[in-house]
């Protein structure tokens, strides 16, 4: 993480080492605790929001990806993708108090505390399981679209929005009846939704096309599409909705977007392959899970007005340089293959992760 100075639009507060492959992150400001689902450790790392130190590790199901906090019951819910379960953790005692069977590959989760409902996006089944946040009973299973995942609730409209990664759309679910009442088309491969009830808007991070869709929730349509850095997968609002944050998995940074102008005001370098983010409104502190570097980056958004210089994508320093040599095992044979094998050829190296 880069060192900050007073001329920068953010203050870097450091990074917290957590479990492997951290994804979904949520804060419990009432307990001053943060929780992050560590997909490759099958656990949740719990940290102190102020001292930025780890205070616990809670084993859950296999590959927890989504994570939300319910401030009323003081419970954390994780969607454990490879166990087809939602795990429920008491945020105070850090004990698992229940596991709720859901459908295939639940990769996303949402909380509607006012309605006492938890929503789980079953990516493999294209459905949403609606769970009673108190009794942990499954109340309904609602049909969404292909690769239904992440969810967000909007109490002002009594609606819940399910992000359909494989369908480039959002399903709108009625908060009372659990029925789908409409759909909104967004860009390709949407990953995450953030809601601003004050402005009656929602923001969707469209990962593969590197954009953010701005949705007018009254008209139920996209009213603007904002470019960000590469492969945004996380999305949140901050500073009472005046700032949007996009976690760019492809570039290892966070775009800070001015809501009013739709312009990217700053880019904050974080760890490797950032995924989800959560904001402490009281202190304008942003917590980012880095699936590549097994850490949570923490920074304070200190921007209050438009900065003198806006971020630009610089030419990558590797361009024009000899490609650094590699010697890595082949996935199939296990034998080491080196860059020498491709010498004298035009070729492309695609770097990817399965998550």
């Amino acid at each position, binding site marked *: 993480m880069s060192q900050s100075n007073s001329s920068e639009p953010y203050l870097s507060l450091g990074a917290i080492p957590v479990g492997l492959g951290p994804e979904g992150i949520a804060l419990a400001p009432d307990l001053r605790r943060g929780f992050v689902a560590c997909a490759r450790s099958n656990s949740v790392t719990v940290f102190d929001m102020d001292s930025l130190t780890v205070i616990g590790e809670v084993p859950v199901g296999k590959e927890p990806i989504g994570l939300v906090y319910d401030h009323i019951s003081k419970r954390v819910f994780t969607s454990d993708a490879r166990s087809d379960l939602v795990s429920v953790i008491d945020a105070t005692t850090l004990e698992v108090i229940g596991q709720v069977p859901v459908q295939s590959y639940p990769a996303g989760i949402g909380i509607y505390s006012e309605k006492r409902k938890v929503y789980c996006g079953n990516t493999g089944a294209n459905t949403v399981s609606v769970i009673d946040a108190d009794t942990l009973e499954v109340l309904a299973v609602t049909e969404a679209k292909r690769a239904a995942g992440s969810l967000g609730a909007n109490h002002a409209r009594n609606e819940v929005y399910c992000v359909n990664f494989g369908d480039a759309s959002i399903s709108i679910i009625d908060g009372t009846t659990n029925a789908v009442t409409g759909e909104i088309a967004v860009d390709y491969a949407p990953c995450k939704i953030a809601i601003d009830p004050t402005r009656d808007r929602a923001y969707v991070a469209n990962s593969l*096309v590197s954009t953010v869709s701005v949705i007018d929730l009254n008209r139920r349509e996209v009213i603007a599409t904002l470019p960000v850095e590469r492969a945004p997968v996380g999305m949140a609002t901050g500073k009472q909705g005046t700032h949007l944050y996009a976690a760019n998995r492809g570039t290892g940074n966070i775009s800070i977007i001015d809501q009013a102008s739709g312009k990217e005001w700053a880019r904050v370098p974080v760890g490797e392959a950032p995924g989800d983010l959560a904001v402490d409104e009281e202190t304008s502190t942003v917590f980012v899970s880095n699936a*590549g570097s097994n850490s949570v980056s923490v920074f304070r958004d200190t921007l209050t007005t438009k900065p003198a210089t806006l971020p630009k994508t610089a030419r990558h320093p590797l361009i024009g*340089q000899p490609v650094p040599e590699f010697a890595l095992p082949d996935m199939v044979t296990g034998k080491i293959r080196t860059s020498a094998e491709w010498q004298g*050829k035009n070729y492309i190296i695609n770097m*990817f992760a399965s998550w």
Partner: protein
Amino acid sequence: MINVWEHVNAEDEAKHFCSIHKLVCPVLLDEEGEYMRRLGLRGVPINIVVNKKGIVKAVGMTTPDEVRATLTKLLLPFG
């Protein structure tokens, strides 16, 4: 292709991913991202275009369309 940052069971995870997406090209494993760090790359997915002389011509691109457009611009063959 180089699979990076799986942290656990990289071989199985990469094979599973390749079977879902029907990928048949050579796949190497960089389980903890050591080669990524040497390249100064901090995210995925990302592509690196290398020419016959071993020089990096482009870095970035997320979709196949972006890769195609970059190669066209560089007058390099696609596919």
